[in-house]
């Protein structure tokens, strides 16, 4: 990560640790989503962890870096599409089943992860950025 030498954000130690652990946090979130969706709240907990990985970047490197990684419009569009897929699965239950990759068992937890993760990260962006009078965040 080339931003590690910049003055913004926290100290070098925090940035290095963030850089090392980031992938694992993201991976763990996806793991929880895929593995735990049969249990209670699988997609939700996975989404929270995915959101935390981006919150982690934001805390360590500052908001510019985090928003460069995940643009606000991408967040909005992905939440919208995931919610639409949810609705589509609810309306046409059987059409996904023929192809195993798009079976409801995979698609529902993934959508839930996107919605929860995107939603929580959006709330965090709103709380951190908009309170400082930053109009162009979205």
């Amino acid at each position, binding site marked *: 990560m080339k931003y590690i030498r910049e003055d913004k954000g926290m100290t070098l130690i925090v940035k290095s640790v963030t850089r090392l652990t980031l992938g694992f946090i993201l991976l763990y979130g996806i793991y929880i989503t895929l593995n735990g969706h049969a249990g209670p709240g699988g997609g939700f907990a996975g989404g929270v962890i995915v959101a935390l990985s981006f919150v982690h970047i934001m805390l360590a490197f500052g908001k510019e870096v985090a928003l460069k990684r995940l643009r606000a419009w991408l967040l*909005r569009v992905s*939440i919208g599409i995931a*919610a639409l897929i949810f609705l589509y699965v*609810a*309306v046409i239950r059987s059409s996904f089943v023929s192809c195993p990759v798009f079976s409801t068992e995979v698609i529902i937890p993934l959508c839930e992860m996107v919605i929860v993760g995107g939603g929580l990260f959006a709330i965090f962006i709103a709380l951190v950025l908009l309170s400082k009078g930053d109009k162009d965040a979205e």
Partner: protein
Amino acid sequence: MISLLLIIPLSSAFLIPIIGKRIKWTGGAISSLAAFALAANSFVIISNLMKYKTLLYKFGAFPPPAGISLIVDGLSVFLLITVNVVAFLIALFSMDYMKQYTDRWKFYTLFMFMLAGVNGVLIAGDIFNLYVFLEVAAIAGYFLVGFGVRDEELEAAFKYAVMGSVASIFILLGIGLLYSYTSTLNMAEMARILPQTGTSSLVTFVSVLFLMGFGLKAALVPFHSWLPYAHSQAPAPISAMLSGVSIKVLGIYALARIFFNVLGMTPAVCFILIALAVLSMVAGSIMAFGQSDIKRLFAYSSISQIGYIALGLGIGTPLAISGALFHLFNHSIFKSLLFLNSGSIEYAAGTRDLNRIRNVIREDPVTGYTNLIGSLSICGVPPLGGFWSKLIIILACIQANHPILAFVAAVVSMLTLAYYFKALTPALFGTHATAGIKASGRKISFAMAAPMVILAILVVISGMMLLPNPGRELLKGAANVLQNGRNYGK
């Protein structure tokens, strides 16, 4: 078909954030189209309801007591028609009205969520789903009230959010206690189990919780303090939506559904409902006298008119219930019309202050005359709908041996006439222009005028609901559901 009532608003609410930000006009177009589809769908549901008495949709095809169900009966369909037609006209109005705001796609998204919540409350056959949809509609409402993000708008939204959350907590506590008592959340099943368990002080306690919670959503008088702020500070289409749709569905409909069909009306509940109703009618109309803000005036008048509806439900005779439902329909139409009028006056004159608005009827005939029709109807001037519904409620009071209530209702009707006369005559006809309506130089467009004209026509012909077919059948079907008491869902 029943599920379409949820699919249409939700899918448009999710679609608008994807494309509505880049292509500005799509937000208004999608939401208007969706609201139109909902209204059309409600009419299709009516024609099916003529054949079968109740329509049932099972989630995942699990049968009702265990599975979640959506139920449409006479009462639901009566309100579905009212809500979706009014919401379509409001969506049409907001297409041009909302151009003064930025980030319009957020408005339309929240608007569609609110509509989804309201439709969901009307068709939920399950008391917890009713609560969830109620929260969806209410939370969208909190954000929409503060949409303008000026100080006073945010203050109103915050007040509404705090009061609304308190109401929701009461309702949730009541639902939790009822669930622990009956071990079911399905309303029809609950209505079957409750008489078998005998009387219990827990049911009384739950009744009190529901009266507080839904009374707060309906803005009956001791719980009304959020309403004047929220209704006056929201954007005009949302004021119309809150007053014409939200307080009726989230408050009155939920109250009626739960008390008549699930818990059963006891004399004590009737007495409390009548007491709250009389208090609302009198206090709302007295407080309306001092208002100089046109939207606050309409807001206080909403409180007073909600009192009439609650009075009819509290008396509980067949005639009174029909009167209450008819007044609900009428009030939904003319109060949305009046709030849309206030929006277009504010749009053209740049002010809501009744001391500065003058000569509306000359400068802007469409707004002026539709406002005149709406005001005459709410005051109860004979050929218009408001007269008939108030007459039925007053007659029902006399028939049920409550002459004092009839007297109060008649006096409040006169008070209504008085405060509308006092407030709107100078605004509509007065010629001494201190500010004039053309202050901002904006003229209302066709898309803003058309909904007001359609609503005014509906106000004029709504008395025809009392003619045999199809109006009276619809009204009778709705009233029958409430009279049948605990036979809900059969």
